[in-house]
């Protein structure tokens, strides 16, 4: 609990006509910490991520990055500051190759792209970084295939890889494990675990095995409200959380 606070949500509220999707949510993300956000479907997790990343404008509340208010900044400005996200619904560049996908993500972190002359695919710096990323996610054999030709699980891996490009300090991961097979889940868990030192990670995930293995802190969202926040043990033991979200046998399930 000691790392520097990178991203902070203060009193975030989001209303969709009659529906209160987020209600007065406070949340800190610290460097060196994986903060898991769990909650039933429709609790408002993705909505919160969208507000932290800037895709959605909160109805009320503020988002602070390193103590500076960024609530009014558009998505791309926040991404430049180093707030990066992955999408729950896979969102990759379908007709481009895996290589181009990754290179494009890397390129975003190499200053502006108003470079009209030199051939982009010859830029070794970009290519190397892209290849490294591909290797980390086991996509190296797929580098020259269009993303649309990847199986669902591979696309999910690409999705997370795009978010990780350029080593952004804040990572907002919306169900990175979803769609990834049992074996892949293990590897991804290891990979995310390795991110802890240098990043602040917000992890939304329904795979409790992964959450319990990774999270330093867990916040539980139900019907748009935070009902609990604390260590893994505290949350696992919290009867309210069990009733609203975990259910009773989820622990055995996770164990398989």
């Amino acid at each position, binding site marked *: 609990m000691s790392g520097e606070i990178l991203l902070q949500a203060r009193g975030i509220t989001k209303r969709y006509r009659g529906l209160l999707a987020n209600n007065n949510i406070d949340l800190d993300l610290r460097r060196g910490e994986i903060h898991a956000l769990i909650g039933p*479907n429709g609790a408002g997790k993705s909505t919160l991520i969208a507000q932290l990343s800037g895709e959605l404008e909160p109805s009320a509340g503020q988002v602070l990055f390193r103590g500076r208010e960024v609530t009014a900044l558009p998505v791309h400005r926040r991404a430049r500051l180093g707030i990066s996200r992955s999408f729950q619904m896979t969102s990759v560049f379908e007709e481009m190759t895996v290589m181009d996908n990754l290179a494009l993500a890397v390129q975003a972190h190499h200053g502006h792209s108003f470079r009209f002359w030199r051939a982009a695919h010859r830029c070794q710096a970009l290519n190397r970084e892209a290849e490294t990323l591909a290797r980390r996610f086991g996509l190296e054999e797929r580098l020259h295939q269009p993303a649309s030709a990847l199986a*669902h699980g591979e696309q999910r*891996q690409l999705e997370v890889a795009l978010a990780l490009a350029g080593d952004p300090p804040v990572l907002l991961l919306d169900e990175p494990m979803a769609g990834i*097979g*049992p074996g892949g889940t293990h590897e991804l868990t290891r990979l995310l675990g390795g991110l802890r030192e240098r990043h602040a990670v917000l992890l939304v995930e329904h795979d409790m095995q992964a959450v319990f293995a990774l999270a330093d802190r867990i916040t539980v969202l139900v019907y748009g409200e935070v009902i609990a926040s604390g260590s893994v043990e505290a949350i696992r033991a919290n009867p309210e959380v069990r009733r609203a*979200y*975990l*259910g009773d046998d*989820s622990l055995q399930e996770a164990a398989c």
Partner: protein
Amino acid sequence: MLTVTGLQAGYGDSEVLHGVDLELREGEVAALLGRNGMGKTTTLHCICGLVRPRAGIIDFDGQSLQHLPEWRIARLGVGLVPEGRRIFPNLSVEENLRVAAAHHSEQAQPWTLERVHALFPRLRERRRHAGNQLSGGEQQMLAIGRALMTNPRLLVLDEATEGLAPLIRDEIWAVIEGLKAQGQSILIVDKNLGRLLPLADRYVLMEKGCVVSAGAADDLLRDHELQARYLGV
């Protein structure tokens, strides 16, 4: 009820399935397993007519499906819960269900809007929302509900519990168990072996577009070496 023999299929120049065989009897639950990208979805899509097989026979109660268009197959009673949900974003939740309503099997107790609402009360609460205004999990429920509304004789579930909260996931498993108990035939792809295998009658294990092992689900449940080799667990 369903017999697939020598199924080959691919996309463009690449061949993805190199001869898949599988079998499912009336009232059974079969699990299709394999790591990412091994061809599970492609197999299911061939059965449902979304991908045209290049070779092989798909026999569904004496009807061969491999040349039929997808809507004919659906009318024969194959209901699909697709990977990635594929909810109609511009229809309301209720319309998503109603648009699918049909009776492709003569069930004593057909699925109706009420029964689906009873199964997933959340869908009743959200019934006026547009499909794209649902959370991921809600969409998943809707996709299952939608497939049930066609009253299929064979329900095909592709990663139906992806992205669901544990509690809901449990519910879905319970629903699947309930469906099985009612004699619904189900072909299912899911990564959650712990829940799937005890429920399934038989399994088919795929690796790079081929079936590497098949048999009774209980056997696989006990065979940890096989699991480790082909599923990485």
